[in-house]
């Protein structure tokens, strides 16, 4: 009897301690809502802002230019999450003049934006602006996720303007099962209209991400996961909150862009691998990509499966391919991200 009471008391204490930590987690901040590194806006177009990171004294850095291109369907600051957890900040401190694109949140009218608008419009002009500011005719580009796809397409069209290309968890082979494209396919992305597009609500895109791993990313799974994690130390929980708040913080997406991405690169279409991809009317020829390329995949990536990412080998034969332990977000902003940051810096320095 006494032993049973002891066990009950222990459970009660554990539950209460978890609730106390949950209170602490919920009353602490998540992500900053902006990048962590001081930056100045050097170019604006529609909702896009081109940010240039500043040093400790508030001055722009010198050195080879690096442009970070995030995915337009999520917040840019995953690449500059916290002062000690910033991919872009790490690269800047290594001696590069770092720029980041913030695509912003599209408005209703942006539902008409297509792939050409992003690649030949927003991205091309951002590269042009970076080149003009730094007086460097060619710059380094680091593309993350869908931002990597845009960067790859841009580089194939304008190879002379890119010194080195880094692709982070960028899906190449759309026929590899799993990942966000497959889930979106299952959830009806094929029904998105190119001619009569809608602004796909953030809640719907969030739904696709939650469907990726029922049991872990699903509603019940995540509540359970959080409850179990509440035994962890407070600083670890703050990390969880920071990452989770970014993952949750998706933005709406232009339906025309999603329709085009699906019809060009989605399951069963796979036009990158078939070498029939186009941007507007211009064909994409990856043979034009002759500069050094680094591609990183994440072994536990549920959004862009590693096999689909590593398929870059068949398109760009000289690409250096690395597969890291971790997930889609973890390898760029998690506790183990330093390995990727270091390799990226070495690669950008040509070592």
């Amino acid at each position, binding site marked *: 009897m006494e032993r049973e009471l002891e066990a009950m008391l222990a459970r009660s204490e554990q539950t209460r301690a978890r609730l106390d930590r949950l209170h602490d987690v919920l009353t602490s901040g998540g992500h900053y*809502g902006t990048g962590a590194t001081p930056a100045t806006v050097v170019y604006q177009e529609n909702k896009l802002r081109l940010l240039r990171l500043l040093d400790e004294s508030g001055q722009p850095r010198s050195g080879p230019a690096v442009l970070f291109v995030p995915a337009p369907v999520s917040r840019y600051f995953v690449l500059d999450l916290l002062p000690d957890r910033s991919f872009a900040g790490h690269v800047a401190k290594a001696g590069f003049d770092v720029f980041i694109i913030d695509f912003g949140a599209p408005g209703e009218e942006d539902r008409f934006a297509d792939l050409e608008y992003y690649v030949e419009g927003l991205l091309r002009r951002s590269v042009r602006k970076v080149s003009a500011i730094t007086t460097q005719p060619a710059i380094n580009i680091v593309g993350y996720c869908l931002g990597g796809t845009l960067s790859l397409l841009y580089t194939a069209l304008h190879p002379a303007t890119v010194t080195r290309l880094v692709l982070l968890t960028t899906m190449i082979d759309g026929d590899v099962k799993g990942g966000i494209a497959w889930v979106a396919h299952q959830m009806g992305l094929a029904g998105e209209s190119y001619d009569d597009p809608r602004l796909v609500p953030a809640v719907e895109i969030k739904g696709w991400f939650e469907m990726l791993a029922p049991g872990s990313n699903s509603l019940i799974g995540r*509540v359970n996961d959080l409850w179990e994690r509440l035994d962890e130390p407070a600083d670890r929980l703050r990390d969880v909150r920071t990452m989770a708040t970014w993952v949750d*913080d998706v933005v709406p997406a232009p339906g025309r862009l999603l329709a085009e991405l699906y019809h060009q690169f989605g399951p069963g279409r796979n036009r990158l691998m078939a070498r029939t991809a186009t941007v507007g009317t211009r064909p994409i020829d990856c043979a034009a990509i002759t500069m050094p390329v680094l591609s990183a995949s994440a072994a536990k990536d549920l959004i862009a499966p590693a096999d689909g990412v590593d398929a870059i080998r068949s398109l760009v034969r000289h690409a250096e391919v690395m597969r890291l332990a971790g997930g889609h977000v973890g390898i760029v902003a998690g506790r183990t991200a330093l390995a990727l940051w270091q390799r990226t810096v070495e690669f950008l320095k040509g070592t």
Partner: protein
Amino acid sequence: MSESDASKSEPTLVERWLQDQQQWQRTLFTYLDSMMKNDEFLMHMGNAMRGSLLAGKPYPTTPPQAATSTEDAATADRLDKVLFALHQLQGQMQDVLMTLDEIRGARPIRLKPDSTNAKAIRLKPDSTKKPARATRTASGARKTGKRRTRS
């Protein structure tokens, strides 16, 4: 310390149970306090209950469909198309401006110093302004689009 002393200092099961109850009250009051004082706390709780940890913002929901007529929707659609076309034009204009900057070499051009402003300024296309004096290149030739004529 003897075994009896040790057992005296350790709280009994009943005492521990009472302490735990007090702690539960404290936890409960902390939550109530936060709910009363912090307007956002309920939102954070709601987000957590939905498996989300969204910081400082409510869980995304589908925006309610505005009750508009087909005619209004068609007008809004046309306006959106016009607005997006303007965004595209803005981009093209930026391309033009960047090209002009490239042509000018994006170098600051020094105007004749006057009493009010002797600072170097960038030459901007403006038909109302008197054309700035062109800079000389290393070879001594003027950098202008016009052919030089002998006087």
